[in-house]
């Protein structure tokens, strides 16, 4: 038997052996109508496209969030100074919100010992207003660096030296920057509770001292009733 004849016979045999459709048209029609009902995004394998689209919308769409713009200080009549974060409600894209919440630490990994890296991290965290309790750097050959930081809530030390008439005024405390106002007590060795002879002069003095402590920006004084001081970076 010639080879081409054998091939032709086998092709026909293959055709006969496979010549049966597995599904009737009704079944195909039902799947088609179901597919048309759910739409292309859910029917087709496009989870990646849906995820990317959602992420893009989330990043670009404006959302409301609260950000801190400096601090509000209030000096009560008894000499107590209340400090609270000056917050404002704004709308912006998610990436802008994330940028407000984050700061960057840049580490020169090359040719740096672990101790030098720890020192660098500590300095940058301190510069951002954090009190750093512990910094440890582990380094693994060829695998980059592992970094572990224990960070306490940001704390600001405020020291004010002034005079009330001939009486010395000394104010010193640490302020935890967190939710709610921080409370400063005016001390002269002990708590000073005498009424201020000239509240306006004391305000000016307080503002100058706050500026000396590194609080930068414009200062506005509202002398009505209490003594709110608005500081803006």
């Amino acid at each position, binding site marked *: 038997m010639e080879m081409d004849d054998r091939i032709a016979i086998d092709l026909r*045999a293959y055709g006969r*052996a496979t010549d049966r459709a597995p599904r009737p048209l009704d079944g195909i029609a039902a*799947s088609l109508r179901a597919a048309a*009902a759910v739409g292309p995004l859910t029917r087709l394998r496009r989870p990646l496209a849906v995820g990317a689209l959602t992420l893009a919308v989330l990043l670009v769409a404006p959302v409301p969030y609260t950000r801190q713009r400096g601090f509000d200080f209030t000096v009560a009549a008894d000499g107590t100074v209340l400090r609270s974060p000056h917050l404002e409600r704004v709308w912006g894209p998610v990436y802008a919100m994330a940028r407000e919440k984050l700061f960057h630490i840049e580490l020169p990994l090359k040719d740096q010992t672990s101790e030098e890296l720890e020192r660098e991290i500590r300095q940058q965290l301190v510069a951002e207003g954090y009190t750093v309790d512990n910094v440890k750097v582990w380094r693994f050959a060829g695998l980059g660096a592992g970094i572990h930081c224990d960070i306490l809530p940001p704390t600001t030390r405020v020291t004010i030296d002034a005079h009330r008439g001939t009486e010395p005024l000394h104010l010193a405390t640490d302020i935890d920057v967190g939710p709610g106002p921080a409370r400063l007590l005016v001390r002269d060795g002990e708590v000073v509770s005498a009424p201020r002879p000239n509240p306006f002069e004391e305000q000016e003095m307080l503002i100058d001292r706050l500026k000396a402590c590194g609080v930068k920006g414009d200062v506005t004084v509202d002398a009505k009733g209490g003594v709110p001081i608005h500081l803006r970076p």
Partner: protein
Amino acid sequence: MAKQARADRLIVLLGPVHEAAQVTARRLCRSHADGDDLFQETVLRALDQIGTLRDEARFRGWFYAVMVSVHRARHRRRFWRRLLSLDELTFEPARPADTETWEGAERMAQALATLSLAAREAIVLFELEGFTLEELAAIQNDSIPAVKSRLSRARRRLRDFYEKLDVRAPISLGKERRHGNG
């Protein structure tokens, strides 16, 4: 056009061709399950693209062109299947067959599995489904000379396969022959 209306239109057009198309899908693939998947995916792709079909009289060729496109996309996604040994190929007849038909069909299934994707498409569509060279060229999106050349190479490859099997002798497709061929 609303999606449901497009689905209804496709169902009507599929009426005369769906059985042959399902069979073709199975013949193009190495297993019935793959063939059924290919047909299902082709139908869904056709639903998306039915708006591009201008002449309904040409639906059969258009649908097969969609099937060939889907077939090649699936092949690219599942490239590892090209590495499967012929011994792993299990022929499943769609209907009961006598021994000679079964053996001939299984041998042809193995021979087709040795062909390239486009060559297998060409043999199946031209020899089994009865498409003309012009229709085959349109379905494979190639020129007629290219399709002729592909068919010629595919037949030569089939002949080589059969010569190695020495099937002019009484046919017996035992494992020992497959092993004997390396």
